[in-house]
């Protein structure tokens, strides 16, 4: 099933991917200065997955992510400046500076949070899907986990539960080939993560994650299945991360030119630009304008995040045991 995207949708998709790329590339630079506290796990290289899936989702649909969650947040519509301020640990951050990179959430946009525990999002999303089913809406829920996270018991339990309860959720395994420093072809027992789907009574497909259109099509089918009450699906998206597991990871476990080659030959933004301009769907100028706008947005976000105040000391003790009327 091929869905034709409108010009607006194509431009939006590009903007999402470009925003993620610019956000992550900038963080890569800024993190090296030592000004950003804690850890960051960059999504650069994986943009087509987030953009391709989120293109089908509404605010009332939920997603849950993992530690490598910036891309999912941006694609779901979480405020970019708010995200940057959060990563900098500032008061103006989307979580008041209390969550940080790994816990960025915005429940109003249906983003149940990046998560420091890989695989933990899977049962949460099953629960969100259960809630939609109980409430009788046609909302769906999507969880993103990696090849490493795919081995967590939480994911298996959630898949089984979603299947027996026929829940409207989608399991997206972003297989970037490495779980921290361990290759997925070593740690995942079957040939494809998607092979596991059959064991849990749901359809599974493996998709080229460098190709926005391939992701968009597969995600569209799975989300339509879920919305129409036909239950859960598993999508394995094969892609790469350009940077290490965390910023500071020297990535010595990878082949020397691995990343360089992928950037030059398979980059998802490059492919998208080539395909859409060659097909006459978009012009280079339109895309360049987006590039410029995104650059300004990131620049502005970083500038403000750097100068914003840190949380007040009272915030240390707030948000536990709040009493309600």
């Amino acid at each position, binding site marked *: 099933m091929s869905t034709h995207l409108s010009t607006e949708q194509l431009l939006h998709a590009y903007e999402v991917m470009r925003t993620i790329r610019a956000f992550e590339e900038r963080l890569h630079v800024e993190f090296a200065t030592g000004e950003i506290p804690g850890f960051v796990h960059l999504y650069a290289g994986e943009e087509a997955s987030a953009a391709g899936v989120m293109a089908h989702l509404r605010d009332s649909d939920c997603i849950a992510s993992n530690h490598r969650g910036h891309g999912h947040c941006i694609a779901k519509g979480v405020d970019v400046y708010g995200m940057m301020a959060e990563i900098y640990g500032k008061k103006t951050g989307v979580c008041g500076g209390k969550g940080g990179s790994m816990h960025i959430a915005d*429940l109003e946009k249906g983003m149940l*949070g990046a998560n420091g525990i890989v695989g933990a999002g899977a*049962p*949460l999303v099953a*629960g*969100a899907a259960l809630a939609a089913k*109980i409430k009788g809406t046609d909302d769906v829920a999507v969880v993103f986990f990696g090849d490493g996270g795919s081995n967590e018991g*939480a994911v298996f339990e959630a898949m089984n539960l979603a299947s027996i309860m026929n829940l409207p959720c989608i399991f997206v395994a972003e297989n970037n080939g490495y779980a921290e420093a361990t290759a997925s072809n070593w740690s995942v027992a079957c040939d494809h993560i998607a092979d596991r789907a059959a064991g849990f009574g749901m359809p599974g497909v493996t998709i080229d994650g460098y190709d926005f259109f391939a992701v968009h099509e597969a995600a569209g089918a799975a989300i339509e299945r879920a919305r129409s009450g036909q239950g859960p699906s598993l999508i394995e998206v094969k892609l790469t991360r350009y940077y290490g597991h965390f910023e500071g990871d020297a990535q010595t476990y990878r082949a020397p030119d691995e990343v360089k080659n992928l950037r030059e030959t398979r980059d998802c933004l490059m492919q998208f630009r080539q395909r859409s301009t060659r097909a006459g769907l978009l012009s280079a100028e339109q895309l360049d304008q987006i590039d410029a706008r995104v650059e300004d947005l990131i620049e502005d976000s970083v500038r403000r995040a750097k100068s914003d105040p840190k949380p007040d000391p009272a915030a240390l003790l707030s948000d*536990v045991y709040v009493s*309600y009327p």
Partner: protein
Amino acid sequence: MARKISYQQAINEALAQEMRRDSSVFIIGEDVAGGAGAPGEEDAWGGVLGVTKGLYKQFPGRVLDAPLSEIGYVGAAVGAATQGLRPVCELMFVDFAGCCLDQILNQAAKFRYMFGGKAVTPLVMRTMVGAGLRAAAQHSQMLTSLWTHIPGLKVVCPSSPYDAKGLLIQAIRDNDPVIFCEHKLLYSMQGEVPEELYTVPFGEANYLRDGDDITLVTYGRMVHLAMEAAANLARQGIDCEVLDLRTTSPLDEDSILESVEKTGRLVVIDEANPRCSMATDISALVAQKAFAALKGPIEMVTAPHTPVPFSDALEDLYIPTAAKIEAAVHKVIGARSAA
């Protein structure tokens, strides 16, 4: 208020009345109904000890059996709680905490704080605690301090049918995750329970007995042993004040300190293991904040630092007794003799 029902019935009634009042409440757990997919009776169990029996038929679609997947269904309950529903999930035995701990520890307990105060996770996790049924090491623990230690969780330990109903209704209405600890041996306890809906507040200890000589602080089933000891001690001329904590998180520090300021003596009774327990927690609190009022050292009456043994001869030695509480009181009071 004259009607008497059991602790178990009080819990069932709380669930039924609150589910009737609020359509967002639902139940999920292993065999909370029972019989799923099987050819025989639907609602075959209603919970392993029958606490949720009957709710499956009263509330179609709102009492969900789950497979043996604590991570899966507890996590799903957490997820559903973020979406405007009020799940009451059941961890059949608190000993199974290890199977689902992440979803409670790192997810439910932390959403509100981590997400800057914008997430509400109104989850209740009901679970069975305590020894005395000869269920052995993996089905008899208390683990109260495990949950109490985690910021963001509320921990409730009702000691009577009246408290069980009121505290459970409060827990369901509370917008924070609540661990609701039901002691297995209390299920058949009878007590006066109002027919209407009512709540019992968290963070407010219950004075079961006023006294001037010594303060006994405890919770859960141990409350009844403390009262038994207090009656025996009264005949010996020792006047005990007995506090039932009701909730260990939030903890009613004020009542504990106020009582010790008055009596000057403290014995803490806790069925859980002694290292890093409620007993040590309360002892440290009093030693720190009411030191000047203390007329003698604090005594703790707890289980030993062992798993729960199986043989009844051994399990009966494991669980604190009224005699052990009385001995502790005498030790604290020192030379005080029988009248």
